């Protein structure tokens, strides 16, 4: 009985693994076949040396970093304050932060275009910098569910209220409490939210495309529509970036309670 159920588990794992790995392996294999005479990394060479790749990947990386910074500055104090003073509002805030998962990105973008078009009271689509700013704001919205969830969980793991009160009674100002007591203790939660955000922003297509900005997502789509081998190589690269982010989350999650021992 026991051995059959264990066998069943292994079969399920095997099927799952094949389901995920097979397309990946096939894509990888295909991406190596650009040269007729055997396997090579030719497609990767072409992709990586394409100025379009470098420009869009650089642009998206920059956007991701800005999104993460603004997101953290927005979410950490908010989640902290909710937990400390307004715990009753938490379900509401949780609901709001989940909205970007429920409302399609395309709806959000059309909303933005309506609100911030060149004839609106706050025209943000007039020039490239303003549109970049608008795009970053939409990425922050998109990242909210991931950032808020992980930071809120991180805050819940420490006794926010008592730590705050201890710091207050020792004369710490609010900025000091946030920067020296709260931030360091939710650092790993912040980082895992940040990597998740990075993975999401790097491949985002809808918003960048509709706002007409030169991001990596639209570039992927463009190459995919016009070339044969390069899209596969790009898919593998994008996949590796995402997994590197996930891997880093794991690393930081595991180091959440480091057994530091200074000599």
């Amino acid at each position, binding site marked *: 009985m026991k051995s059959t159920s264990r066998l069943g588990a292994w079969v399920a794992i095997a099927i799952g693994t094949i389901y995920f790995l097979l397309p990946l392996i096939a894509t990888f294999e295909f991406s190596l076949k650009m040269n007729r005479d055997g396997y090579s990394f030719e497609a990767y060479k072409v992709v990586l040396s394409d100025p379009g790749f470098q420009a869009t990947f650089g642009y998206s990386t920059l956007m991701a970093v800005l999104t993460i910074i603004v997101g953290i500055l927005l979410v950490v104090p908010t989640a902290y304050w909710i937990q400390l003073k307004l715990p009753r509002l938490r379900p509401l805030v949780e609901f709001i932060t989940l909205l970007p998962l429920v409302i399609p990105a395309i709806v959000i973008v059309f909303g933005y275009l309506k609100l911030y078009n060149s004839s609106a009271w706050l025209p943000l689509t007039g020039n490239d910098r303003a549109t970049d700013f608008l795009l970053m704001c939409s990425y922050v919205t998109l990242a909210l569910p991931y950032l808020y969830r992980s930071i809120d969980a991180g805050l819940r793991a420490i006794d926010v209220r008592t730590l705050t*009160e*201890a710091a207050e009674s020792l004369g710490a100002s609010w900025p000091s409490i946030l920067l020296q007591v709260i931030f360091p203790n939710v650092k790993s939660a912040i980082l895992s939210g940040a990597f998740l955000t990075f993975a999401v922003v790097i491949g985002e297509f809808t918003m960048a495309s509709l706002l007409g900005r030169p991001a990596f997502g639209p570039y992927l789509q463009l190459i995919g529509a016009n070339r044969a081998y390069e899209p596969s190589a790009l898919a593998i690269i994008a996949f590796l970036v995402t997994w590197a982010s996930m891997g880093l989350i794991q690393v930081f999650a595991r180091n959440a*309670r480091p057994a530091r021992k200074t000599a």
Partner: protein
Amino acid sequence: MAYLTINNLHKRFDDHVVVHDFNMSIEQGEFVTFLGPSGCGKTTVLRMIAGFETPTSGHIRVGGEDITHQSPQKRGIGMVFQSYALFPNMNVTQNIGFGLKMRKCDGAEIARKVAEVIKLVELSGKENHYPHELSGGQRQRVALARALVVEPRILLLDEPLSALDARIRKNLREQIRDIQRRLGLTTIFVTHDQEEALTMSDRIFVMNQGRVEQEGRAEMVYTEPATEFVARFMGNYNLLGAAETQRLLGLNINGHMAIRPESIHVLDAHSQQADTLAGTIRQHQLLGNIIRYQIESAGVTLQVDRLNRTASDLMPAGTEVRLQISRDDMREVR
């Protein structure tokens, strides 16, 4: 003029009145205890003194200055929490130095003061340890040192020992008391353990349902309870209702009669002494140095403590005895 005075303090959470017309005053250098059962409002009063909670009405003054609405940062009142509340990201030195850093002291001064206080709480050798590498007792001593090093005007301790095991608790409470005396620190200590309150305090405030039920010197509160509640809470008083008092002692009273178990003398059944009561031993429990008997007399069961000198002293159930209770040892309480 007392150092800390609290007048007509009230605290309401929604419809729930938690602190009710609370009044107290303590002198500089005094060690007082808030003693009371769980939920009686001890922590709430302490949090209002520290500034973490705003009173619904009333005033708190320190050295003549009204601090009722001052922010906690400005009060200069130290707090030690039951849960230690050490900063997990800082080692012992950094935790203790935090308050000085916030006061913008220079590095050399911080190092000197931290080293001094580490010696005071006997944590030498643990300077670079992080909180999760310390035992409960050590953590609480770090928390104490962290509160002491900034030289607070008043030190508040909210059940600081209740998460520790009995031996460490005894040790640490002596250490706290010793440090408090040496520094002449005005201290309020919260506990629901009457033994802790009795051994540590200059003065005890017994609290019940958000009010001060009785205040006084430790020995007074123990020997002269003013109310039935205090008598029940402080010791193993025998509390007799009006009818029982009438039946057993032939006295007419309104409230309750409180008689401590060690003040009842047990004589043998043939004793010729005047003013004794006949009784029968029902049960006994061995409590180490004393034996506690349940003795029935006139339909009332009394707890009676006797010293446990030799094994042959023990009186088995069913033994007939005579009991002698001095009028001075009977206390009428509300």
